[in-house]
């Protein structure tokens, strides 16, 4: 969004191609650390950005399934980039700024795909209210897992939090709060093996890593919070990615290894993944992109 705003201010012709508008920030019920933004609701922040972008006359193409591939062709000695979305539609440009963010990582276990939206979900903000008076499990002891558990305590009658190791990585303050809530039960050293059910989830199997024993939990909901992976599949072989699939950028210029392609925000190898940082990175990328276009 910020890249588009900066690029539009430089009178570049811009189009935003997105899977869906909003991104991770729009799913945050409380944003307390975006300077100048007092509203707190992440969706409002993103809607404000969208209005700002629209005021510059920039079109946001929401293509649903995201970008499938990137390629290029030569025209008058210059490289023209071609993006193809998963519907087969193509978009061309003289430069590309990749700001595709991250998406929730999957567990990769049997039953996960089959029961997606049938008890398995990756978004407590979206789905927690559907689990009123039900027993649920949160997989993951990082901050997002703990946040999910916290949201679920408002609705569910029982919330198990399964953590892979013997300590949860999330903030101690949240852990302490959760431990005081009666419906919450932490299960440590738990490796989730399978999600089972009929029409909907009714069971989860996990291995107790301490004893090696396989155990069952009767749950109707499984909230998966085991980290995020960058939306960078389409760039494989086109730009350098690091071992986690993040786009490697020059931190000063946001240039990727492919000349003419820039990247910004959570999809890149910058160390801190924060809305305000991503916004700043987008602005940086757009200004560098403008300079590069002007000199080429």
């Amino acid at each position: 969004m910020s890249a588009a705003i900066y690029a539009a201010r430089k009178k570049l012709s811009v189009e935003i191609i997105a899977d869906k508008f909003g991104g991770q920030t729009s799913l945050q019920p409380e944003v307390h650390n975006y300077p100048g933004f007092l509203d707190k609701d992440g969706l409002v922040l993103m809607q404000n950005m969208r209005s700002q972008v629209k005021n510059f006359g920039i079109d946001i193409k929401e293509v649903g399934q995201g970008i499938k591939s990137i390629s290029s062709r030569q025209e008058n000695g210059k490289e023209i980039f071609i993006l193809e979305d998963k519907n087969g539609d193509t978009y061309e440009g003289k430069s590309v700024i990749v700001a595709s963010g991250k998406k929730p990582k999957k567990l990769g276990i049997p039953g996960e795909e089959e029961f997606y939206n049938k008890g398995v979900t990756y978004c407590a903000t979206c789905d927690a209210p559907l689990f009123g008076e039900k027993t649920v499990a949160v997989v993951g002891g990082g901050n997002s897992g703990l946040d999910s558990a916290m949201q679920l305590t408002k609705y569910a009658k029982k919330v198990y939090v399964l953590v892979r190791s013997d300590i949860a990585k999330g903030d101690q303050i949240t852990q302490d709060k959760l431990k005081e809530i009666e419906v919450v039960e932490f299960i440590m050293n738990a490796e989730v093996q399978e999600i089972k059910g009929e029409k909907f989830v009714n069971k989860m199997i996990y291995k107790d890593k301490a004893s090696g024993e396989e155990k069952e939990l009767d749950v109707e909901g499984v909230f998966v919070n085991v980290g995020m992976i960058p939306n960078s599949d389409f760039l494989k072989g086109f730009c350098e990615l690091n071992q986690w699939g993040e786009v490697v950028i020059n931190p000063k210029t946001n240039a990727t290894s492919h000349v003419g392609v820039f990247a910004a925000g959570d999809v890149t190898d910058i160390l801190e993944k924060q809305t305000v940082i991503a916004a700043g990175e987008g602005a940086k990328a757009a200004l560098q992109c403008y300079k590069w276009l002007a000199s080429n």
Partner: protein
Amino acid sequence: MVNIYTTPTCVYCQMAKEFFKENNVSYQEHDVSSDAKAREEMINKSGQMGVPVIEVEGEIVIGFDKEKLMELLDIK
């Protein structure tokens, strides 16, 4: 008649409602976080638990599928 099943925290529910307002589509909202009957109804109709679920003249749309809604509501 358009029915939309929502939760108060669901981002795509809010986007869908905004889309209806922009296009002057009247709709009836059912908050499945507080209305257990509506929740059952939504799960039975759609066979899943994700929100929003939108019903346009008996046809069920899961998620905020803008293109599908434009087609069903004849919006250009």
